[in-house]
C-alpha cells in the first residue's frame, strides 16, 4: 500500500495509549482492536492482546476504494434481499452490517491466498473478483454454486456449519507441504465462520490440526452475535478470540465494523501465516443487522433497542464521516458511488431475472468424475420418461 495523505497518521508514529482507550470507549472491551471509531475518528494504532501494534497506511484513493466496496456490497446484498422478497430467489443470507468485516478481510487477501467461505461471504466473494451473480444461482435454486474455486481462490459456499474450516486447514497443510510458506510472497489461507460455528466439533478439530501442523491459516470468525436466534451466550461464556490460546496460537478481537482495523489485523495474520508462523484466530466483533436469512423473523428473539445501538456503529456511516472530515471525499464522490451501486444492482437484477432454469436432466451430471453405469441407465430412463409427455415424442 502506498503512503497515506498528510491528514492520516502514518506508520511509525506510536499512539498506543490512545488506541487502548479509544477502543475501550467504543466497545466496552479494552481488548478490541479499533482504528476508526463509530464516529469516524481515526485512531493511529491499536495494540492486540499479544502486544502487536496494528495500523494502516492507505492513500486517499485506497480509502475511497474501501468505501466504494462497502457501499457496493451492501447495495448488491439489498438487491438480493429484494429479489427474494419478490420470489426470484428461494432464500437469501444477507451480510447487512458485516460489510466492513468482509471487505476489510477480503481486501487484505493477496492474489495467491485462498479463502474458504460460509454462505454469507458475498462481500469477500466480491473482493475476490467473482461476478456477484454467482451466489445468486445457489439461492435461486438453479445451481449449487457456479464459480471455479481454483480460478478465483475462493472456495464453494459451505452450508454445513464449520465443515469448511477443516477444508481450509487441509488446504493450508498442502500449502506448507508444497513449500509455499516462509517468504514474503508465500501463500496464506483464510477460513470464514460464524460465532455459532465455534461450537461445532469440526471447527475445534480444525484448531487442533492447524496448530499441530503449524498451517498457514487465518481463522476468521465473524461474531455477529447470533446463530439464527441463539445469542452468543449459547456458544461461549468468554470472548471467542480467547479460544485460540487453548490451542497454542494467537487470537485477537477486532472491531468488525471498522474496515481499517479489520484490514490491518487480517493482513498481519495472513502475513504471519505466509511467513510460516502458523495459524491465528481473528474474532471480528460485529452485528447481523438483518434477519438470519429471509426465512427468519428476528423480532421473535431480539429487541429493537439492541439493533438500534448497533445501528450507531454502522461500518459505512463511520467511513463516510471519516472521509468527509478528512476531506478525502466529498458529496459528489458519495453520489457517484451511490449511482454506481444502483447501476450495478439494476444490472444484477436484470441478469437474475434472465437466469434460465436448468434442464431437469442435468441433475444427473457431475455425480462422479468418472460417471456410473447405474446413473447412465437412470438418466436414459428419465429422458425416455420425460419424452413420453411431449406431444411430439420421438
Amino acid at each position, binding site marked *: 500500500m502506498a503512503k497515506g495523505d498528510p491528514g492520516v497518521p502514518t506508520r511509525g508514529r506510536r499512539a498506543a495509549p490512545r488506541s487502548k482507550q479509544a477502543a475501550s470507549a467504543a466497545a466496552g472491551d479494552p481488548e478490541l482492536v479499533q482504528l476508526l471509531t463509530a464516529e469516524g475518528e481515526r485512531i493511529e494504532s491499536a495494540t492486540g492482546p499479544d502486544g502487536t501494534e496494528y495500523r494502516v497506511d492507505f492513500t486517499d484513493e485506497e480509502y475511497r476504494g474501501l468505501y466504494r466496496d462497502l457501499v457496493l456490497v451492501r447495495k448488491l446484498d439489498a438487491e438480493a434481499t429484494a429479489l427474494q422478497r419478490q420470489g426470484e430467489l*428461494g*432464500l437469501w443470507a444477507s451480510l447487512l452490517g458485516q460489510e466492513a468485516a468482509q471487505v476489510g478481510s477480503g481486501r487484505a487477501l493477496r492474489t495467491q491466498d485462498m479463502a474458504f467461505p460460509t*454462505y454469507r461471504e458475498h462481500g469477500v466473494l466480491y473482493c475476490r473478483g467473482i461476478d456477484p451473480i454467482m451466489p445468486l444461482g*445457489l*439461492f*435461486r*435454486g*438453479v*445451481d*449449487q454454486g457456479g464459480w471455479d474455486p481454483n480460478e478465483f481462490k475462493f472456495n464453494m459456499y459451505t*452450508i*454445513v*456449519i464449520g465443515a469448511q474450516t477443516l477444508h481450509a486447514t487441509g488446504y493450508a497443510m498442502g500449502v506448507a507441504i508444497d513449500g509455499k510458506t516462509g517468504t514474503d510472497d508465500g501463500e496464506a489461507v483464510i477460513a470464514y465462520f460464524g460465532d*455459532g*460455528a465455534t*461450537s*461445532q*466439533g*469440526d471447527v475445534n478439530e480444525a484448531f487442533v490440526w492447524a496448530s499441530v501442523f503449524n498451517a498457514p491459516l487465518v481463522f476468521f470468525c465473524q461474531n455477529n452475535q447470533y*446463530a*439464527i*436466534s*441463539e445469542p452468543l451466550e*449459547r*456458544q461461549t461464556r468468554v470472548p471467542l478470540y480467547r479460544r485460540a490460546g487453548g490451542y497454542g496460537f494467537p487470537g485477537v478481537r477486532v472491531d468488525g465494523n471498522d474496515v481499517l482495523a479489520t484490514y490491518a489485523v487480517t493482513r498481519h495474520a495472513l502475513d504471519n501465516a505466509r511467513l510460516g508462523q502458523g495459524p491465528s484466530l481473528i474474532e471480528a466483533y460485529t452485528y447481523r443487522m438483518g434477519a438470519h436469512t429471509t*426465512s*427468519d423473523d428476528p423480532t*421473535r*428473539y431480539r429487541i429493537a433497542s439492541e439493533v438500534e445501538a448497533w445501528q450507531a456503529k454502522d461500518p459505512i456511516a463511520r467511513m463516510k464521516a471519516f472521509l468527509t472530515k478528512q476531506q478525502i471525499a466529498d458529496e459528489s464522490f458519495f453520489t457517484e458511488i451511490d449511482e454506481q451501486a444502483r447501476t450495478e444492482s439494476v444490472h444484477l437484477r436484470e441478469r437474475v431475472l434472465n437466469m434460465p*432454469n*436448468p*434442464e*431437469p436432466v*442435468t*441433475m*444427473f451430471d457431475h*455425480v462422479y468424475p468418472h460417471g*456410473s453405469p*447405474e*446413473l447412465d441407465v*437412470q438418466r436414459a430412463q*428419465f429422458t425416455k*420418461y*420425460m419424452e413420453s*409427455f411431449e406431444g411430439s415424442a420421438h
Partner: protein
Amino acid sequence: MATETLTLGKALNTGLRRALENDPKVVIMGEDVGKLGGVFRITDGLQKDFGDQRVIDTPLAESGIIGTAVGLAIRGYRPVCEIQFDGFVYPAYDQIVSQVAKMHYRSQGKVRIPMVIRIPYGGGIGAVEHHSESPEAYFAHTAGLKVVTCANPQDAYVMIQQAIASDDPIVFLEPKRRYWEKGPVDLEAPLSEAYPLHSARVVRPGTAATVLAYGPMVRVALDAATAAAEDGRELEVIDLRTLSPLDLTAAYESVKRTGRCVVVHEAPGNLGMGSEIAARITEECFYSLEAPVLRVTGFDTPYPASRVEEEYLPDLDRVLDAVDRAFGW
C-alpha cells in the same frame, strides 16, 4: 370427542405440549427451539410455558445435542432432540449409531435411552443444499434404533406422544413439506387406545395393485390412487408409518390379493427402504407376484438444485407409470 382442524406442524406442537405436561422428565432440546420456537415453529410457545430447563436452547453442535441427551437420559430424563434439518444430522451420526443405538444392548438392558430424535425431512420446499434430504435408510439399517414417520396431523399428534412415551430410542421423521397441511385431530382420545406406533395402516383399500408409501409420499400415493380410480383401477394404499421395525403384515396380505406392488419414497433408490421392502415382499409373496415390486424413488444423485426438484421427486405421474409397468410386465 374434541376434534380440531390443525396443520401437521401444529399437531406436533400440541403433541409435544401434551408430552411436556404429562411427564416432568420430558425435555426438549435443540438449536433455536426456545424463543424462536424452532425454524418451523414446531416448538412454538413451549419454552415460554415450560421454562428454559424443559425446552433447552443448545449450542450449535449436533453431536453435542445427541451426546448430552444420552447423558440426560442416563440421568433419568426423556430428551426430545430437534435436528434442524435432515442434512444436519450427520455430525451426530456417531453418537446416534454407536451410543444411542447400542447403549441398551451394551449394558444388557441396564441402561435405557428413551430418546426421540425429531428430524424434519424430505424435499419439495425449494430449499438450498442439505435441506431436503431423506436419510431414513441410514437409521433403519442401524439395529437398536426405531424409525417412524407421520403423514397426517392426527398421526403426527399421536405418534410424537407415543414415541416420547416409548423407552426405545426413536428417530422421528417429520415430512417437512406437509407441515402446513391441515387435517382433523382428535385431541382427547386417550393415548392408551391409540393406533399402535409400530404399525402400518391401509389408508385406501383397493384391489388392482398395492402402493406402499410413508411420510411425504403418502399424499402422492393417495392422489395417484384417485387418478387411477378414474381410469377404473383401484389401488390399495398403505401408509407404512414405521420404517424400523417395518410392519409389512398388511402389505403381504394386500400383495397376495393384488399381485402387484409399487413402493414410493423420496430417498435415492439404491439401498433405500424400497429395496428392503421389495426383497421382503418377494420372499413372502413369491407365488402371488405378477410383476416384481417396483420402486418409485429419488434418483441416485445428491439432492439436486431446487429448480429441478420437482422432476427429482416421485410424483403422481411416476407412481402411475410404475403401476402401468407392473401391469405390463
